[in-house]
């Protein structure tokens, strides 16, 4: 085995990798933000709405959770133009990310909402709050505090899954890795480098989310004590 690792050619194309990293960050950042909001919204609708709403939301959640992200991406990217909706690869990718994360977030937040005891809701109602006010002021914050770790894990998984967007040639980090690979032929070195970048990103994101959790649900507060009581 006379193989020698050569990282210099890879480092020489760091600019390409950094471009990719920037796009990955954008996809993940916007995707997580919008996906989380979608999840909260749908979990709320499911809780407050009627039977039909519940069935629709559940169907969406089940469909997304039981099919691969890649296939969802391909349906959106190739399928939408065929019904007259033109999407750039980036737009298709972002839509797929939001729809995918939205389903997982819905499920997680729903579990959080259901963990809030009925008596809390009755206490709110008996103080003459509307159902919406009860949700907003009594249910939501404790529900989110309880599932924050589960949500955080899902966010990290989603960030890592943005790599799949390279399949439709979105020029994010993995796609740029493939570009650099075909220029340099240092396949293993390229992918080791990029893997380490992802790993660093995942660690940073976890720290960030833990920090955010500590700010939103501070230890020693009522919410801090609820943090992470429901998870998977």
């Amino acid at each position, binding site marked *: 085995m006379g193989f020698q690792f050569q990282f210099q050619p890879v480092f020489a194309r760091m600019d390409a990798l950094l471009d990719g990293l920037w796009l990955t960050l954008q996809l993940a950042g916007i995707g997580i933000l919008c996906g989380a909001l979608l999840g909260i919204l749908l979990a709320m609708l499911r809780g407050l709405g009627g039977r039909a709403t519940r069935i629709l939301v559940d169907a969406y959640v089940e469909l997304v*959770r*039981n099919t691969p992200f*890649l*296939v969802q991406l391909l349906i959106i990217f190739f399928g939408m133009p065929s019904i007259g909706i033109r999407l750039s690869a980036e737009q298709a990718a972002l839509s797929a990310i939001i729809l995918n994360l939205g389903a997982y977030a819905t499920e997680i937040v729903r579990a959080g909402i259901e963990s809030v005891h009925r008596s809390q809701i009755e206490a709110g109602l008996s103080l003459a709050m509307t159902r919406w006010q009860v949700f907003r002021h009594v249910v939501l914050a404790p529900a989110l505090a309880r599932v924050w770790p589960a949500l955080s894990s899902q966010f*990290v998984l989603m960030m*890592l899954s943005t790599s*799949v967007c390279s399949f439709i040639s979105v020029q994010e980090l*993995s796609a740029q890795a493939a570009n650099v690979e075909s220029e340099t032929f240092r396949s293993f070195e390229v992918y080791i480098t990029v*893997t380490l970048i992802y790993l660093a990103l995942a660690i940073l994101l976890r720290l960030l989310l833990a920090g955010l959790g500590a700010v939103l649900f501070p230890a020693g507060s009522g919410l801090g004590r609820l943090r992470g009581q429901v998870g998977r």
Partner: protein
Amino acid sequence: MIRQFTQSEFLFILASARWTLLLTVMSMLLGGLLGFLVALARTSRLAPLRALAAGWIGVIQGVPVLMLLFLSYYGLALAGFDLPPLIAATVSMALYASGFLGEIWRGSIQAVPWQQWEASSALAFSRPQQYRYVILPQAMRIAIPPTVGFLVQLVKNTSIVSIIGVVELARAGNLVNNATFQPFKVFGTVAAIYFVICWPISLLARRLEGRLHARRAG
């Protein structure tokens, strides 16, 4: 030439599901074996072993499955193995599974009440005997629902091995789409097949989880 999406295209896609399933089963077995070792190491009394396992889990859960695939694919080639892509695919999926199953099973082992360790120590069980007769049987019951749940993740993630040329479901869909240009029909079919595979497993996982909770509560 544009072909129609006919029965034969459908059958082609359907038949490719066997590679998805084969890949899932093989990587579950291999990954399960490795994951078991990871879980044992993670709950070991030896701090370095614990750290090693924790590191392994952290890395596997901190990198995209796609990168595990490329690293396996090019890594095996570098090591001088000239193997079909299916092997690299299996290896990468097994690595992926080991990280997640290792963590799931660590949790299950640690969910067994510590008094069980104490009680079995008091009966002069050796450490392996404690595992074999007391801890693992109880941990297993706790582990089954999330393990079944993870199986769904595994099935879905095998779709990415299409990029190294394994003609499983996703790749078959791509091939047919390139020939027919009927993306909704084609990928809809692919999605439906995945759904038919995954949904029953998801339901089973939920049922098992419900039953476990009922038993623990009652």
